[in-house]
């Protein structure tokens, strides 16, 4: 087998050094009744060529986003990732290293994390960011738990603009704690009043920006109202490119910002691996979940980096840790950071402007179609349209014509009487002919 270097001679020499006759003697602590003598009932080993054929045939059964007009977002976005990014993250020194527990021989990973934390803090407008979490949705759960630790209160208020699956994750992680999670009904027209729901028991209010339906709202007044009641404002950003165009959550007064960082450096990958971002104010650093990288010096006074404040973490604090997280999204954070370094301030702003402009162009086309209504007063690269027919049917019909038109709201919010709503996303990868195809397809389906 190509990954196993021992020869038969090696095995026999090693067994004699150990002083046993065969390898099963090393399994002497296993009850013989449960020690398998034959391989389990699965296919035998396969050549590289055969594995490649097998998996390629599965891959071919999927419709590739880049090969069709594609308008799906809702928490995962298709952006162009420069070739440099994927080359660099495949360098074995990054790819095949573990969590940097030995800082003297992990400075590459650590310095990249320090730069990543800086970039995340800058774009979110916050003081500090951690070294990543699994993804935005689990980050959202962590933020709610973090707010509870800080405020010592139990009531979290979730906006109806929060991605429905993020809402579900918060529900899950608080199932068996005594947190009181107030879930607002989905708000496709962004008309909810959250300020009225903040009281002296409220630990945090969780909003999304831009929200699940694409609305961009100013949460400054909400932040002020939360602050007055000593509650925290948690702002969730699922499309991190947006912050190149719209005001930062920090500038609005957010206390914790949670992001899904997939948009930069990372592909769609059918939902994972993605990249959880978490940023906050300096004063809450010791309540953060996850790894943190910090600057220090070595024995010769040279600058270096280490994982720090680990007394918050499970391997030190065990059941009193701020989170149970261990492995996070190291390589995805590297891809994010490389992409953002390539973009720089100028490229990031331009990429955001381009996304918005392309989305406006599509909105202008679609709102001219009879029966189609755009619900958003303000949006970034994603908006919600109301159709005269169930959106799921429309999407399926267009999918049969190889147009992936968006996400029917009913897919994530079934039984909410929102069958006529479709969330449409546009990034820089969408071309004019894609927009024309969607426009023509919609006209035909709706006629």
């Amino acid at each position, binding site marked *: 087998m190509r990954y196993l270097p*021992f020869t038969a001679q090696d095995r026999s020499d090693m067994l004699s050094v150990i002083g046993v006759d065969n390898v099963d003697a090393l399994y002497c602590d296993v009850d013989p009744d449960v020690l398998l003598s034959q391989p389990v009932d699965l296919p035998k*080993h396969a050549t590289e060529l055969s594995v490649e054929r097998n998996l390629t045939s599965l891959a071919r059964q999927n419709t590739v986003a880049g090969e069709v007009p594609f308008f799906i977002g809702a928490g995962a976005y298709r952006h162009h990732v420069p070739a440099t990014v994927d080359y660099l993250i495949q360098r074995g020194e990054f790819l095949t290293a573990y969590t940097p527990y030995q800082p*003297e021989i*992990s400075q590459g990973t650590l*310095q990249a994390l320090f730069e990543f934390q800086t970039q995340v803090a800058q774009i979110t407008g916050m003081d*500090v960011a951690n070294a990543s979490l699994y993804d935005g949705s*689990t980050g959202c759960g962590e933020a709610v738990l973090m707010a509870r630790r800080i405020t010592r209160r139990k009531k979290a208020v979730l906006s109806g603009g929060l991605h429905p699956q993020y809402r579900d994750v918060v529900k899950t992680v608080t199932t068996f704690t005594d947190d009181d999670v107030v879930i607002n009904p989905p708000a496709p027209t962004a008309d909810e009043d959250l300020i009225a729901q903040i009281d002296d028991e409220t630990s945090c209010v969780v909003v999304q920006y831009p929200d699940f339906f694409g609305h961009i709202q100013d949460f400054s007044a909400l932040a002020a109202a939360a602050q007055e009641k000593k509650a925290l404002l948690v702002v969730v950003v699922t499309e991190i490119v947006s912050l190149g165009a719209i005001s930062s959550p920090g500038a609005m007064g957010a206390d914790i910002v949670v992001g899904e960082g997939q948009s930069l450096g990372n592909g769609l990958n059918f939902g994972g691996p993605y990249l959880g971002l978490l940023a906050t104010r300096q004063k809450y650093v010791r309540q953060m979940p996850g790894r943190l990288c910090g600057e220090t010096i070595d*024995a010769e006074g040279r600058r270096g980096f280490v994982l720090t404040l680990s007394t918050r973490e499970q391997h030190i604090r065990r059941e009193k840790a701020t989170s149970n997280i261990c492995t996070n999204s190291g390589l995805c954070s590297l891809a994010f950071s490389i992409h953002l370094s390539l973009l720089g*301030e100028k490229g990031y702003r331009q990429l955001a402007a381009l996304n918005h*402009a392309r989305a406006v162009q599509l909105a202008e086309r679609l709102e001219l179609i009879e029966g189609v209504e755009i619900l958003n007063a303000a949006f970034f690269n994603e908006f919600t349209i109301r159709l005269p027919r169930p959106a799921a049917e429309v999407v399926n019909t267009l999918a049969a014509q190889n147009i992936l038109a968006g996400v029917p709201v009913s897919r994530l919010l079934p039984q909410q009487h929102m069958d006529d709503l479709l969330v449409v996303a546009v990034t820089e990868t969408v071309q004019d002919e894609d927009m024309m195809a969607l426009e023509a397809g919609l006209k035909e389906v709706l006629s």
Partner: protein
Amino acid sequence: MNRQGRPTTSGAEQGPTGVVETVSGHQGLALEEPLLYERGSPEMTGVDLPEVPAVTSRLGQMGREGDIGLAGLSEPDTLRHYTRLSRQNYAIDMGVYPLGSCTMKHNPRLNEKMARLPGFTDIHPLQPEETVQGALGLMDMLGHWLKTLTGMPGVALSPKAGAHGELCGLMAIRAALEAKGNARKVVLVPESAHGTNPATAALCGYQVQSIAATSEGRVDLAALKEALNEDVAAVMLTNPNTCGLFERDIINIAEAVHAAGAYFYCDGANFNAIVGKVRPGDLGVDCMHINLHKTFSTPHGGGGPGSGPVVFSEALVPYMPRPLVEWRDGGFTMEETDEDSQSFGRLTAFHGQMGMFVRAMSYMLSHGADGLMQVAEDAVLAANYVMASLSDVMTASYAGPCMHECLFDDRFLKDSNVTTLDFAKAMIDEGFHPMTMYFPLVVHGAMLIEPTETESKKNLDEFITSLRGLVAAATQGDNDRFSAAPYLAPRRRLDETAAARKPILRWSPPPASTTN
């Protein structure tokens, strides 16, 4: 032994490797690299984007004002920055990485190639299901392999890493107990457990009660039986355990746990020792997470991403999280939570770490059932070989045979001034990544060595020879070699205390030019 010019004085004037002071600060191929913010500038960009079409903005009043402060690099500088950083890392590709409990095995590049097929990487989790049948088919296949290898009837693929898998398992256990009307209060965890175990139990609202180990490094069955009562919800046990030993009493433990009305969570971090050889389902396990980034070779990436699918016994299947891949009406579908379901709900947005599923599947297909059995046997053989080759000079904590990793403690250093930390740092100078140190907590100055099955005998022999040399140096009183090690790494020992006392967690612009 001083062939690389290691200084015998602690003087920094000679430079870290005792070679010439340079004007640039670089030392030949040992290239220093400034921070992104020192190399780059806000004006620089390494991408050329299309022009932005002129449109009427629909951002409302929310346009971002002021500078963000991001630094940009040209494309050539980007390559150079990250290439230089990469060279300051140790990695599996460079040498033996015997980090106990982490299974740092070879990461086949076929897996990377497969994960990058556009049909896997360029598909959206919310595409219509008819357009992603191949992806769902792959998930179903992975689930089938994991269930078959573990002898368990249910699998949930969505957990994002090992600790997330633990959460998944304990949530299902608690949901099952609540359905019976009593969630109970306590989870029993051995002293030797990974820190994630008690942290996860606490996250599920349980009190953690520690159970003692025997002098043979295994769970004390009598102590466990004594602790079991109607308040105990579950026992979380790693098997093989973190001392590198198979829990001999595991079947009796499972029976006792079940007799008390509790569930048996197995931490599958060490599955590599028994994959294809022992099915946890045959041991009475109720649920177990599997770190695809350990046993099934998906790369660790400097700290993730991982993937932690969980397998379940019949008793817990109704409580598994959603979504689950199901075959229905001639096609695959994602089953979401419905009203009748007893599922505890959703653990993450979308459906898990697809990129890792493809890599793991590529690895499993390559090995096949026969090859995976060989993986376990070779991993156990390698660890026992290392143990046998070092036991005369280092102090093994427990009698063998061990499983895929071997545990030493610091008794062999007791007459020297060398600590476990010093010893580990001296291994860096020898060109090896240190073993896991100070874990598990049940022995003093623990050194947990996991060689994995992908090291050749030659590599193992070189490793053993180096360690024996270090032991000799330590016991002969060559303290300098250890107390200030490493000498030959990109950095000397780093001041972690200073880092924690006054944390600097980001770059900030020099005060004079502060802009916001």
